[in-house]
């Protein structure tokens, strides 16, 4: 069992490495000079810009910049120790035999330092951590709602296969699948916030002068966006659980149980459900891992202060350390989620472990 986990962990490392490579080169291959964006003040002369460029390493080729971003270590030819040791946290050593200066900024993605945002001059990690709870609140509620509604629908429609209820659930799930979530969100806002006035139109909580936590208010703000997200999950989960439950129904052991004379309810609760739930784990893992990545559109419609909107705004404003930071955090969580689902699947189904 431990070897299985260890093997999967080791496989995750090159994937992370690949993610960082792709994200970095994609973001940095954008047209435009980041230094100019940073130093918009007309009073700053070009000489100052050049010094800033050298200090931040933007005059070096992209692969060297990638290594600097990823590991915090940069290399230059010649002896540059005086020039660079003025930067905070940087310690440089000059290696005479290869005529290169190695500088260590003490950061880098490997050491969990995601850099500084160009826009706010604050550390990227701090800003991300501020916004993570909001996104998690939204996506987790959406996922839980989807599970609560979607799984029973799927099982129910499989049990009553061919009946009217089965057809209704299938039609319902195809419709939910095809429904654009942004349109659904707009319609819901129109109906519930504008016309009826029951629910607020956006935001995470009502703006107050003191920081009181009003659960009713928070729930009112949470309902609509969570349901918009839940619709997508319901569509997916009801189809998936229907297919899985149908497969379980046709197995030998269920037939045996029924021929033994067991009551339907006992067959369901004891034998069928746990076996039908196992493949659900394969969906849940990536679902949990994708909690940070999937709600950009919903957050935009409902003005939810989450990571998705942060990524969107940062990308539009070319704040590439922030964008890279968000991509790395989401990807790490996604990979961990996949790992978790593989491990859980291995725990639940011993046949998988032995492969």
């Amino acid at each position: 069992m431990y070897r299985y986990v260890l093997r999967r962990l080791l496989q995750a490392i090159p994937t992370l490495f690949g993610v960082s490579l792709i994200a970095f080169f994609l973001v940095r291959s954008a047209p435009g000079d980041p230094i100019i964006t940073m130093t918009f003040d007309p009073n700053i002369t070009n000489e100052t810009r050049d010094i800033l460029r050298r200090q931040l390493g933007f005059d070096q080729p992209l692969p060297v910049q990638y290594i600097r971003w990823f590991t915090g270590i940069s290399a230059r030819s010649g002896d540059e120790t005086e020039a660079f040791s003025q930067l905070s946290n940087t310690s440089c050593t000059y290696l005479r035999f290869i005529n290169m200066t190695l500088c260590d900024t003490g950061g880098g993605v490997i050491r969990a330092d995601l850099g500084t945002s160009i826009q706010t001059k604050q550390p990227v990690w701090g800003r991300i951590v501020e916004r993570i709870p909001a996104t998690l609140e939204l996506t987790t509620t959406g996922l839980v709602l989807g599970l609560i509604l979607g799984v029973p629908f799927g099982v129910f429609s499989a049990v009553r296969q061919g009946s009217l209820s089965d057809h209704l659930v299938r039609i319902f799930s195809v419709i939910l699948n095809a429904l654009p979530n942004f349109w659904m969100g707009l319609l819901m806002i129109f109906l519930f916030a504008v016309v009826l006035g029951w629910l607020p139109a956006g935001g995470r909580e009502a703006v107050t002068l003191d920081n009181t936590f009003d659960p009713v208010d928070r729930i009112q703000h949470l309902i609509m966006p969570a349901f918009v997200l839940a619709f997508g999950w319901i569509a997916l989960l009801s189809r998936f659980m229907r297919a899985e439950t149908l497969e379980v129904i046709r197995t030998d052991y269920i037939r045996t149980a029924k021929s033994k004379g067991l009551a339907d309810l006992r067959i369901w609760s004891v034998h069928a459900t746990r076996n039908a739930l196992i493949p659900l784990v394969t969906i849940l893992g990536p679902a949990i891992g994708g909690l940070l990545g999937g709600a950009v559109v919903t957050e935009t419609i409902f003005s939810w202060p989450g990571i998705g909107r942060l990524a969107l705004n940062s990308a539009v404003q070319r704040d590439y350390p922030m964008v890279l930071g968000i991509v790395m955090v989401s990807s790490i969580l996604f990979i961990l989620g996949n790992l978790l689902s593989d491990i859980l699947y291995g725990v639940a189904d011993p046949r998988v472990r032995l492969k």
Partner: protein
Amino acid sequence: MAVNEASAGATSVAVGVQLKRKPQSYWGMAWQSLRRDKVTLAALGFLILMGALALSAPVIGENLIGVGPNNTNPNNAFAQPYLGPYIKWLLGIDAEIAPRLLAESGGAFHWLGTDQLGRDQLARLLYGGRVSLTIALVAATITLVIGVSVGTIAGYFGGRVDDFIIWMINTLVSIPGIYLLIIVTAIFKPNPLTLTIFLGALGWFGTARLIRGNVFKVRELDYVMAARSVGAHNFRLVTQHILPNSIPIIIVNMAIDIGTLILVESALSFLGLGIQPPTATWGSMLNRAQNLLFLRDPETGVYLAMHLIVGPGLLIFLTVLALYLIGDGLRDALDPMMKNTK
């Protein structure tokens, strides 16, 4: 009846056995199955109708409406749809509203109303449909070509090639797709052609995995081994034996992919990243309508923007629904194992 035919056939044995029914090929059986599936046929009909409307957008624009999609008329902003009052005028229920609307719009028939700049909504929907459908179709084709090629190579050659390709796909899939798309569209600001290429280049992973799985299965079949033992080289094996076996999966996947791509392109345009104004596309029309939800006519209390919200979203929804239903229907028709259980 069958018995008589059989005995008639038995008496003609000396001449040669007459087959009573033509043997059906796989595609023949699939077509028969499809013909009986009313839902899929309805969806197909709707899709063809949408395609025809989109193709004939200029013709409709000139003859039925009178203006193009980008002709602004600020005096006539937020005009309500002409369709309802026109029907009422025809039926004689209410003969005042229709001529008044017509006079306000200066002779142009705004069947579905106008938006905040006075542009005709129906014309924009039709032209937007052209953009959305074309982008989705071309991007789906790109996805298909790349996905099938990569999947077939990975599945056929196996070994290290397969390992590398799977590593690449797993890595690319680990980055949440929406972030990749946001990065690419926000940073590179593509025009519709480049956007199509990007969408195609970022959407082939699922297809590749699917094809790879299928090629693994087909590779071990007897007739492939037989062909190889007769001396068929790789290219011939792949094109003559393995790929044709994957065609049903490819077709089903393509229908679903086109639907998903319409949703993705609309979502990107809705966020302001995809197609830039003034080009109409269903997603960007919804983007414009987003800020107008609260607009009400002070006198009548009518919500001025309702027709702007319902139209584009409904068309996206119906088109994608039709494509998903077609995909499901094709899957049912093309899967030989399911025929026996119907």
